[in-house]
């Protein structure tokens, strides 16, 4: 068992600490990220921009990302919130590396963790990352670009074009090209990542070599690192976490826009015209007045019509009456 601890590879040491620290810190950092997103202070670009940035703002990438953005023109997003997220991630990562590092030293290496272990690992990881990651980015980008061009040329080769009458179908061609350049790119990325993790593992091993071995039993060590993670006072922990949750919820709902901050270009809302307030009694009385006015108007019109008819009939009667009398007189014996 002791031999196994001594012979633990630097890659395994580096990966064990970085993987756990990344996830431990990410829970806290994601809360900050959501608040910054809600305030509209940060805009991530690209479909995987958020995931990439969240994963990259780790101990090894905190200084590497600005260098990559400057040197290679890579763009993950914009807004003042991105900078705030970078600065906030530093204390969170120091805490996460300290917690994970102390656990790892006690449980896996059986060594007494030194004071300030989190800071000691963090600045070394940030320093290595600032040099190593831009190099990794450059190499992987270069190889991926070339592999894509090469795979594209291969798919257009005459021998492949004659596999079927109409040439290589689109889906097969995309799959083939993706498999070729994806395999090459992934292999280079994995190999370089392992080298980077191994460098970090060697640094952590050097720190551990200066530490005293612990004499406690395995059960005692487990109890010690367990208490670092879950305090004995459960009530206090529950209350403080619930308090943080309540504060976060209040902040979130108070800054969340009520209506969508993403209006669709295709279907903009029409301008709303405010209608006057409906007052039933007034409406009824005004309607009754209007009906009465209209009724009076109709009555007046009818009277006018009758009067006009009467005048016409009188005029007609006079003419017709004279003729009749004359005719009667004419027909009398």
């Amino acid at each position, binding site marked *: 068992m002791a031999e196994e601890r001594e012979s633990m590879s630097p890659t395994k040491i580096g990966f064990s600490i970085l993987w756990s620290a990344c*996830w431990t810190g*990410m*829970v806290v950092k*994601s*809360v900050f*990220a*959501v608040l910054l*997103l*809600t305030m509209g202070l940060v805009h*991530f670009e690209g*479909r995987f921009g*958020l995931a990439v940035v969240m994963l990259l703002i780790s101990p090894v990438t905190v200084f590497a990302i600005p260098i990559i953005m400057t040197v290679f023109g890579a763009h993950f997003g914009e807004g003042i919130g991105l900078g705030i997220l970078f600065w906030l991630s530093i204390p969170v990562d120091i805490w996460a590396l300290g917690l994970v590092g102390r656990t790892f030293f006690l449980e896996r290496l059986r060594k007494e963790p030194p004071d300030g272990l989190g800071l000691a690992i963090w600045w070394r990881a940030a320093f290595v990352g600032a040099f190593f990651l831009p190099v990794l980015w450059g190499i992987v980008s270069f190889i991926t670009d070339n592999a894509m061009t090469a795979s594209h040329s291969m798919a257009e080769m005459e021998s492949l074009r004659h596999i*079927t009458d109409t040439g290589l*179908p*689109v*889906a*097969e061609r*995309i*799959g083939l090209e*993706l*498999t070729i350049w*994806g395999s090459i790119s992934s292999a280079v990325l994995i190999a370089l990542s392992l080298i980077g993790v191994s460098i970090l593992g060697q640094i952590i091993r050097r720190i551990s070599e200066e530490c005293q071995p612990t004499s406690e039993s*395995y*059960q005692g060590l*487990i109890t010690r690192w*367990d208490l670092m*993670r*879950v305090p004995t006072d*459960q009530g206090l*922990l529950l209350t403080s*976490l619930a308090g943080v*949750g309540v504060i976060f919820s209040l902040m*979130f709902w108070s800054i*969340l826009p*009520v*209506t*969508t*901050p*993403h*209006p*669709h270009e*295709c*279907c903009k*809302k029409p301008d709303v015209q405010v209608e006057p307030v409906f007052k039933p009694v007034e409406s009824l009385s005004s309607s009754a007045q209007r009906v009465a006015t209209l009724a009076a108007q109709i009555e007046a019109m009818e009277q006018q019509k009758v009067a006009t008819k009467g005048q016409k009939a009188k005029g007609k009667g006079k003419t017709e009456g004279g003729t009749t009398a004359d005719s009667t007189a004419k027909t009398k014996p």
Partner: protein
Amino acid sequence: MDSKHSSPATIPDHQPSTIEKLVAFLDERVGLKEMQAKMLHEPIPGGSRWAYVFGSILLFIFAMQAVTGTLLMFYYVPTTDHAYDSTQYIIHDVDYGWFLLGYHFWGSSAMVVCVVAHMSQVFLWGAYKKPRELLWLVGLALFGIVITFGFTGYLLPWDQRAFWATTVGVEILDKTPVVGDFIARFLKGGPTPGQMTLSRFFVLHVMILPAALMALAGLHLFLFRVAAPAGPFSGTKEEIKAKTDYFFPRQIWKDMVGMAFVFVGICALALWEPVVLLDQAAPDPGEYHPEPEWYFLFYFQLLRLKIFAGEFGQFLGAVALPVVFMALLVALPFFDKDPERNIFKRPIALISWITIMVMIVLFTVASVINREFLD
């Protein structure tokens, strides 16, 4: 009688508070403390682990989907005349409606991701083996329900994406021998998707599937408690015994952190990529290229391969392949009787899992590239 009990000095000074009285009242009637002890004091061999959080996270996501879904139902109208407009109304006019819809939309994706993660964990840990065969089978049924949830919910906004994804999905189901025609006719309720389709999908989505999921999740939990947690697949007996712990508090804290992380993640996605509807559903796709939700893209791309063209090819890709895959998953605990659970000592299982995951990633990316090619 014992003199100590009758002594005034032993009478407790503590007067129970209102909450304590309420707890005592409930405990007397429903056995609250016994229930609490049973739920929290479940021993976990080898102690708590982050790998065990997915089951609890799935329950949390389902609860949140139920809450957001109920709130959306206050405004959503499941008719072909109003489904699209009411969804637009939710996005543009209802207070926080855009966020609730976004949360519900991304919550469904999170549920699929967590189901796959949970199944992967169980598979890699060898936790489907004897005596947990029934647990595995009920889990597979729950997986089917989650997928059906996604499929039925996709139609409800009644835009072009919803209409054509459903049309393609129902056509795939139609190719199933014997029952395919009946299922397709039942789901569509007519020659083309219309009011009957929307009504049936709505009823399935808000009534039948939630009830089925709750019943099966209850059965899943019951079987889990009967079989007990499997524990880690590696480590000496001494290590496992030293680390063995109760469900409370460590695993509960891990579960809570996992739930908080998923909640925050879904909120971030709802803020970052809110739901945007396409044009209202119409029988003419126009310039829109029909495609399913992102977690089915790999399968959609697979079906584009030449090998799956033609009558037989379509049957092979749309029916035979998924049926054989599901049949293998169902039969897995019955033909893999080797008690070895360490994934690094089960090379076939490890290689199979890696192959499936690589294929899913590869074909999903290929589908995105294919979409760009079509556009």
